[in-house]
């Protein structure tokens, strides 16, 4: 699928998840594979995988930097990505190497227009 991750900035840290649209499309999330704390991720490259009953979906980093936290709750309860994609279902926190990369992402309104186009 097209990249459907979100990033929420707090100073130089970005919290990363997938959008409500993406979780609704993927459905029935049964497994989330995330990087370990301390690993470095690069913008637009894969950092993990979400699996539904039907298929595996790659996760792409919206920004570059060091992984400083992963949502361990998802190991045993991956369904939180379905239930609460913007809060309990967050995936990782990245200390951004280049916060200016955020400027390349769609804002919420542009994203809504983009998914409206996709359908």
């Amino acid at each position, binding site marked *: 699928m097209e990249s459907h991750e979100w990033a929420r900035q707090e100073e130089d840290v970005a919290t990363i998840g997938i959008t409500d649209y993406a979780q609704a499309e993927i459905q029935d999330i049964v497994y989330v594979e995330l990087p370990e704390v301390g690993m470095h991720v690069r913008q637009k490259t894969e950092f993990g995988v979400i699996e*539904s*009953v039907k298929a595996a979906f790659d996760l792409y980093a919206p920004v570059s930097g060091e992984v400083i936290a992963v949502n361990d709750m998802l190991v045993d309860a991956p369904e939180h990505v379905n239930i609460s994609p913007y809060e309990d279902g967050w995936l990782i926190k990245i200390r951004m190497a280049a916060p200016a990369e955020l400027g390349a992402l769609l804002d919420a309104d542009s994203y809504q227009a983009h998914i409206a186009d*996709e359908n």
Partner: protein
Amino acid sequence: MLGKGTAVMKRTPLYDIHRALNAKWTEFGGWAMPLQYSSIVAEHLAVRASVGLFDLSHMGEIEVRGEGAGRFLQKLSTNDSSRLKNGQAQYSLLCNETGGTVDDVLVYRFTDTRYMLVVNAANIAKDFAWMETHNDIGVNLADRSNDTVLIALQGPNAIEILNPLVPGADISEIPFFRFTESRIADIPALISRTGYTGEVGFELYVNAADGKELWHILYPAVTAAGGLPVGLGARDTLRLEAGLRLYGMDMDEQTTPLEAGLSRFVKLDKGEFIGSDALLAQKESGVARRLVGFQMRDRAVARAGYAVYQHGARIGTVTSGAPSPTLKCNIGFASITVSRDNRSNSIVARGPVPRARYKAIDIEIRGKLRPAEIVKVPFYRGE
């Protein structure tokens, strides 16, 4: 996201009903089919707990008629169709001369001069051509696929839903793999106690023109019983739990039924049939690979195409894999090597040894070996 456009694909007569139910679509064997209506897990669990309603009109129906119909089927199929009584169905395989599997089919016997084969959607044209090519007996073959709607009603509540709709018959008395020609409400129907889910259930064959009406009769009863319409997504996980092979995934023309673990449907003592020499030779020499069931020991999901290892050596490939909604673990089929150098696996195929010698395998998932074990199928047993 779930696939390409469905514009050029074939549609079943119930297409508009699925659209109105807001189905997500998938391509299967050239057909636009519902992948899911609500969620694969919800639909799967509805079939296990209550009942599910499936449009399977993409499947093919080929009629075989004439004096030689029985002989024709004995020649083309691996199971012993002479054991069929009128009103009985049988799972069987069509093989080529080298024993490779052309298709897996259900053979329905109406009378000794009238049979019907139900074949996989992607294989309808291939199977019909195969049957015509080998029709030196001179039976009458007719492809009824476009004239037929097939609706499956599967799950523990299937009997109580269907029974009041069938006048003058108690469908609970139809044994497994038997069928009756009757009416559902006013619709002439072949009511078959068969399915692909591991549950109690029926497959209902009606004239294409009556298909929508049958769905509209069954749908309210299904939802009132807590059941759901079910798409191909849950059909796949249901059949996998029940240990049922899927043609094109778990077997194909390069796989013999013996390699697919289907030897009980290959009756080598019934006399010659297409592929019997090759299958007999393979039975005597032993199969080089065999389909086994496996269960993951962690949460990673093994999927078709992933490599299978044992003691660090590559021994095969996953052919089907998915999370099991009923068992809450990840299961699948793998085709693995059986050889003298790999005693443990040859023992899987040949009989009892200490389980620890063959159980443990590893499956490579995104570059990492993940632990799994070979287990008996079916993974789940309902009916």
